[in-house]
């Protein structure tokens, strides 16, 4: 499979996982709630394609895409969301509390930055050459512990790439009502070299993330990547207060799947789609057939 097709496969696996999840939520097989990363798939794939085996990934409440791009098993994730023993964390953690190998996610925004900083400190001491990648959002910037940690990340020169996915909305609150001043300057104020990109195109995110990850790895110091992106779905199951017109505009302009599909021949695209469809449907069916859960 060529590079572009491979990237499309990664994006589509996340997209189909989450669209199937949302469609099946109505049937009552998933307890509680969930947060999808519709529209932000290119960040997960663009950044995590560069992972080395021992690297650590820390994510947040919107973590399915990161988990799948990390290499997490979609069947185990479906089972986790169904609350089954065969899930990633035995059905205890659910949508936002995942841990598998070196992947961790948690549901309180600012605390994930502290977790990631502590892990980067552990890696720095261990000297194995591994780094930590931490995904945060524009909403995360509202919590004070973030600034305590940015300070220590810089003071102690921790090997961490902070990826801020700026989807410009926190649940229903637009960034214009929540974030004052400059996001880039927040990192700069602590002496953390930061790169900004406004894109939903995996081919733009990929090389930039690769450069930054190489810098963190070789120079053993932190970097930040701010990707302005678009959340195309609701915050959780159905709580979007944006207008249909606004959403339509975002889907037209900012869908990473559409952007990447345009680079493939029709045959290749269809082959990838059939492959992903079979994989995700198979994972869903196997998770559903497993013991436990809501019914």
């Amino acid at each position, binding site marked *: 499979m060529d590079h572009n097709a491979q990237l499309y496969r990664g994006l589509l696996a996340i997209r189909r996982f989450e669209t199937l999840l949302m469609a099946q939520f109505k049937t009552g097989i998933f307890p509680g709630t969930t947060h999808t990363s519709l529209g932000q798939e290119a960040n997960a794939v663009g950044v995590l394609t560069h992972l080395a085996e021992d690297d*650590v990934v*820390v994510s947040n409440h919107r973590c399915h895409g990161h988990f799948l791009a990390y290499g997490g098993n979609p069947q185990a994730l479906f089972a986790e969301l169904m609350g089954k023993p065969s899930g990633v*964390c*035995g059905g*205890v*953690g659910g949508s936002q*509390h995942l*841990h*598998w190998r070196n992947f*961790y996610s*948690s549901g*309180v925004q600012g*605390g994930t*930055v*502290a*977790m*990631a*900083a*502590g*892990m*980067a*400190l*552990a*890696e720095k*001491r*261990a000297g194995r050459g591994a780094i930590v990648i931490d995904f945060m959002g524009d909403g995360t910037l509202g919590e*004070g*512990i973030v600034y*305590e*940690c940015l*300070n*220590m990340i810089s*003071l*102690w020169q921790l090997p961490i790439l902070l990826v801020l996915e700026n989807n410009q909305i926190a649940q229903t609150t637009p960034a214009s009502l929540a974030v004052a001043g400059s996001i880039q300057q927040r990192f700069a104020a602590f002496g953390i070299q930061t790169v900004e990109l406004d894109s939903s195109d995996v081919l733009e995110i990929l090389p930039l993330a690769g450069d930054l990850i190489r810098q963190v790895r070789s120079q053993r110091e932190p970097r930040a990547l701010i990707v302005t992106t678009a959340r195309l779905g609701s915050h959780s199951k159905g709580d979007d207060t944006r207008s249909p017109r606004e959403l339509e505009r975002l889907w037209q302009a900012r869908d990473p799947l559409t952007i990447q599909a345009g680079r493939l021949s029709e045959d290749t695209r269809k082959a990838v789609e059939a492959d992903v469809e079979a994989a995700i449907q198979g994972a869903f069916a196997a998770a559903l057939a497993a013991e436990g859960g809501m019914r």
Partner: protein
Amino acid sequence: MSDHVPRTVLDSLNLGLHQAMHDDPDVVLLGEDLLDPYGGAFKVARGLSSAFPKQVLTTPISEAGITGIAGGMALRGLRPVVEIMFGDFTTLIADQVINHLAKFNGMYHGQAQAPVVIRTPMGGRRGYGPTHSQTLEKYFLGVPGLTVLAPFNLLGEDPLGAPGQLLCEAILRGDSPALFVEHKLQYLLKLHATQELAEYSVSVHHMGVQFDRPFYALRLKSAPAAQITLAAYGYMAQLALDALHQLAYEDEIFCELLVPTQLAPFELAPLFEAVARTGRLLTIEEGTFSLGWGAEVLARTAETLGSGLRTAGRLAAREGVIPVAPNLEAESLPGTADIIRRVREMV
């Protein structure tokens, strides 16, 4: 590693930290103002940054951040120890303790552990006033996944002394996060050696799985059967011991004192056995009265013993700010005289 015999609780805790860092290079201490020659605001960390420079990290004033960072370190195999300079500042770390450190093991289905020991001095009687004198551990009792420990000033069998041994073992062998509650006045207390306690019979119930969290029972030797059980921990246990002594010699009221070193999870079997004999229980704590340690201890004792618990009482701090003025501060916190008065009322 040292021939030094600890004389005080402070000595013992300091030796315990030295021992833990010596035994395991993955033990890392984080906190404010830790470096020598200062060695921490209460000197518990004195000498550590000189002896183990790679294992002591002095930090900015970022209690939440360093506690969260310690959680991340522990998830990746280190054994961090966090010093929170004043117990009052544990409010700043509550989210990190409750929603992060104490959650990891359960929410990741047993696939991760976060053995962080958070040490902090609670307590008043130093004139530090409303925000530097409180006893706040009650807010951390009953947090699933969190162990709360408090040392008692005995020398014990271990060369580190009992407080240092408890701390050292919690650091090296604990498999869950622990809040290790010290007390500002307890630091200066002498460790009771067995010969100094010759008047007392001290029995030790060994609790805990990975390491021993002793539950002590003290009474005067050759005294008649105890009429009342006192329960206290940390610095208040010393005040209760003083009260026990005076009550015996001045009032001929005989008490037994039960001192847990593990406050949470609540494991109170030795206390239930003692109260089953006396039928009376007075709990003594320096935290404020409502919904405190004593409330839970009494509730559990009543549930377990039923009518076997005939008389129950709680002694705790007055509910208000702790004043700086020495006379006002003394009135707000329970002292030996208050314990004696309550015991006389109850017997």
